[in-house]
């Protein structure tokens, strides 16, 4: 199902800079960021609001242009692409999940999920099979004929995730995918993220939700448009017979 694992990073960004020009005053949002993400890695990007984390992932997905620096996706230079070039690359390689779902409201759930696969060049039969598989995985098979507006927030976010995974992207990018969800719906999204990650999906997501970030292999922290930390999340050293009850006591 996945392309053969090679040593080519899924993302290689070097010296990435974004400066917004608002009313003459240049406002730097991202100030020289380097990031390499290997196939199968799950990277969480954290940082205070205004630290540049959303701008950063939007640039990685070609949804914002970079001011300077290079972006290589799956071994191909991407930052020099035209808007239509990016559109083609996204269809083929990138799935994107936003905080507010962005589903097409006048299309059914099924059509929302099939669309990216069809745009990516899949046959209608393949797109339908992929949609059926994803919606079943998400417990949404019975909602296939519904309009997005008939679904709860958690269901809509699961559909958005299914849509992002429909064309089997090399890279799943997400910007606060649980930012708008209550605790139960967050749990559904977490389960699916964990599942696709275990299947080898490369994931880069921006989040302030510690439950989401704690599932990542690595956490990258941004402050004022720069990376101030980039390191794996370690496993806790377990004492023999120790339970997480000790954690509850620590924080209770």
């Amino acid at each position, binding site marked *: 199902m996945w392309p053969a694992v090679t040593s080519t990073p899924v993302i290689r960004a070097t010296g990435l800079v974004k400066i917004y020009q608002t009313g003459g005053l240049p406002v730097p949002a991202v100030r020289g960021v380097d990031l390499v993400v290997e196939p199968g890695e799950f990277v969480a990007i*954290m*940082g*205070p609001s205004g630290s540049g984390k959303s701008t950063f992932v939007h640039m990685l997905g070609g949804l914002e242009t970079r001011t300077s620096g290079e972006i290589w996706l799956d071994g191909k230079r991407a930052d020099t692409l035209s808007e239509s070039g990016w559109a083609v690359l996204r269809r083929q390689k990138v799935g994107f999940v936003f905080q507010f779902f962005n589903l097409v409201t006048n299309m059914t759930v099924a059509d929302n999920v099939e669309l990216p696969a069809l745009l990516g060049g899949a046959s209608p039969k393949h797109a339908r099979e992929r949609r059926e598989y994803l919606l079943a995985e998400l417990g949404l098979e019975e909602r296939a004929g519904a309009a997005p507006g008939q679904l709860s927030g958690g269901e809509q976010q699961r559909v958005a995730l299914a849509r992002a995974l429909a064309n089997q992207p090399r890279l799943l990018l997400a910007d606060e995918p649980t930012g708008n969800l209550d*605790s139960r719906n967050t749990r559904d999204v*977490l389960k699916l993220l964990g599942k696709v990650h275990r299947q080898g999906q490369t994931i880069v997501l921006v989040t*302030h*939700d*510690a*439950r989401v*970030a*704690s*599932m*990542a292999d690595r*956490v990258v*922290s941004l*402050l004022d448009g720069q990376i*101030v*930390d980039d*390191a*794996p*999340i*370690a*496993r*806790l050293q377990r004492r023999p017979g120790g*339970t*997480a*009850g*000790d*954690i*509850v*006591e*620590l*924080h*209770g």
Partner: protein
Amino acid sequence: MRLPLLALLAKEPAHGYELKQALEVTFGSAYPSPNIGQIYVTLGRLEKDGFVRAVDVEQSNRPNKKVYYLTAAGREALEAWVDEPTEGPRVRDEFFMKLVLAPLTGIADRMALVNRQRRHYLSLMRDLGELAERTDPGNRVARLLIEGAMLHLQADLDWLERCQEDLT
């Protein structure tokens, strides 16, 4: 430990080991399993304060066991405990002491302290997430304890972010 034991004894008299089991059954794996020695020490102190009394129950082929029951004074103490509001969490964080004091001594960099602490909190969160998955969904008490711990951790992380913005 004192007042939870009084609460259990308000239900029915019990000996030390039964109290340990009752705590484990009630709170599940989300709560540290109480040490039997600690329970007996606490019962001894409660007895000395007049909150519980013990009677020896003879057992065949075994030493007598002590069964504890609640006194009127014990019930009063328990009622007072239940009636008063419980203190909220206080920000008296050891990490914050390190963060504020470390640069004064020149032994640590604040940025590095915050980054290490963030990753530690995320490790704890991952542990809690795994504990939640292992916990019987029917055990609502254990589930709520874990959820409470997660919400505290989230608040700690949010606060850490504020510390990083303002102090580094």
